[in-house]
């Protein structure tokens, strides 16, 4: 499948869902053609994954236009779009998918942004426009355990993390097929 991952954050950003999107792309790229459309200056690279990053240091209106253009180009030949919520991607996604009507799966990666949207009419309207026909994924893998040099290696936690990713990939696969 040709997959487009849409995310407001991506490493070197550290906040969620940045590390999740990078890890997901790495794993999905083994079976699919993956493109990430995100914001950033010099994104961390993943082998066999195309990353389109729109510089966040541009003024708001310019970066939104640039994001719409990039998302349009990446999505027009895609089989499926998998998006994380967040105001900076919702408006471009609403515009692009209004015309292209690509199958859309989404995850509430940025819970505070979702909660904020519930309380504000305009933000809620944009969020609804972006995800009106999206399949929602609630399942998420656990955060990667840290290896701390002065403590025993967390082998059990790392194995659990790997298992949580396998479960997550299975449920994504199911949703991707059902869309």
């Amino acid at each position: 499948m040709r997959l487009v991952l849409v995310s407001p954050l991506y490493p070197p950003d550290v906040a969620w869902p940045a590390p999740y999107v990078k890890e997901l792309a790495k794993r999905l790229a083994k079976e699919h053609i993956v493109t990430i459309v995100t914001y950033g200056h010099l994104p961390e690279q993943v082998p066999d994954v195309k990353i389109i990053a729109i510089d966040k240091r541009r003024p708001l209106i310019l970066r939104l236009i640039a994001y719409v253009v990039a998302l349009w180009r990446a999505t027009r030949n895609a089989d499926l779009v998998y998006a994380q919520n967040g105001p900076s991607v919702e408006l471009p996604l609403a515009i692009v998918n209004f015309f292209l009507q690509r199958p859309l799966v989404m995850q509430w990666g940025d819970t505070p942004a979702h909660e904020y949207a519930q309380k504000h009419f305009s933000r809620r309207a944009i969020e609804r426009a972006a995800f009106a026909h999206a399949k929602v994924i609630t399942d998420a893998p656990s955060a990667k355990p840290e290896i701390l040099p002065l403590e025993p290696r967390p082998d059990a936690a790392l194995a659990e993390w790997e298992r949580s990713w396998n479960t997550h990939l299975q449920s994504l696969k199911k949703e991707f097929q059902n869309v």
Partner: protein
Amino acid sequence: MSKDAKQLWEGYKARELAVIKPILQKLGFELADEQPHLGGERYLMQAVTTQSGKKLILIGHRVSDGKKVVIKTAAEPAGKRELRHERRCRQVLKEIGFAYQVFFSPEEIIFTERDGRLISIQAFIEQEKTFLERPLKEQFDFALKAFKAQESAHATTYKHVRIIERTFGSMGADGYLHLGKTFNIDTAAREFLEKNKNTIDQYCGFLTHTDFVPHNFRIKDGTMYLLDHSSLRFGNKYEGWARFINFMELHNPPLAAALVQYVRDNRTQEELLALKCMRIYRLGEIIWYYRNTLPQSTGDLLKLNEARVHFWSEALKAVSNDREVPFATIESYKKTRDTLRSEDEKRRQVGLH
């Protein structure tokens, strides 16, 4: 020891103390008899990476209740600018809500201008023990928590960049490379930084404390208090790590090794490379700093500063070759340092780290 620099400092100190004492009395404060921040090599120090000005840092107490305080005072424009800048940094850090749950500031008691002098009085933070007296694991945990808090502040939006640049200042790869040339670091190191310019740039835009070492923070009841806010800026995420790890190569090598290992085990290869670049950059800076002190030094201090240039050059070689600084090099330098340090400086160092 340079008589000129020393005499100038002694003169400045005596004049300022004579003026500031009555002002402090009127404000309800008294100076302590022992003033650790006025002696030793204090006169030779100047920050090279942040705004720098002449100021006095004094210890005293509030007359009404005996509360111990730290008094910073400056009469010259550069010193005043630094105190104002530091205060503004504290305030903006609070306003933008970044990392403030980890870095606390000592309570501000007075910030005022009297007789042309800017006076900043803050509560003195008593700590149960110094950072280096804590167990290694505790040191590691505190350091990691502090670095993560800094990293959580990433200037990723236009609005943030404007607030941030106005207040803290920011530095990108071009700035680091430019300063690297100013520091006159050796050709191989400079070429290494130039070759990895993109990696340096990739991790820029993060909040970083350019002088994050134990004498700039205190820990009380598990809370970390930042004493110097003027060295905060937005720059490479690993600049603060680099300064701290380089410092620990001398003062606590197992902690330096543990922090490098943490980055190796948990971060990307690019990040490990960014850390190496920043360590090289900061080592270039410290060598440059001590080279600059040589013309102002004579006698034992000249010998000591030459030993410092040699030691940090050895550290630069080790880091460039992905090695730890040899134990023998560290021990030999420490021995030389302890022999050559003045009694005043030895007193100033007690309980500092």
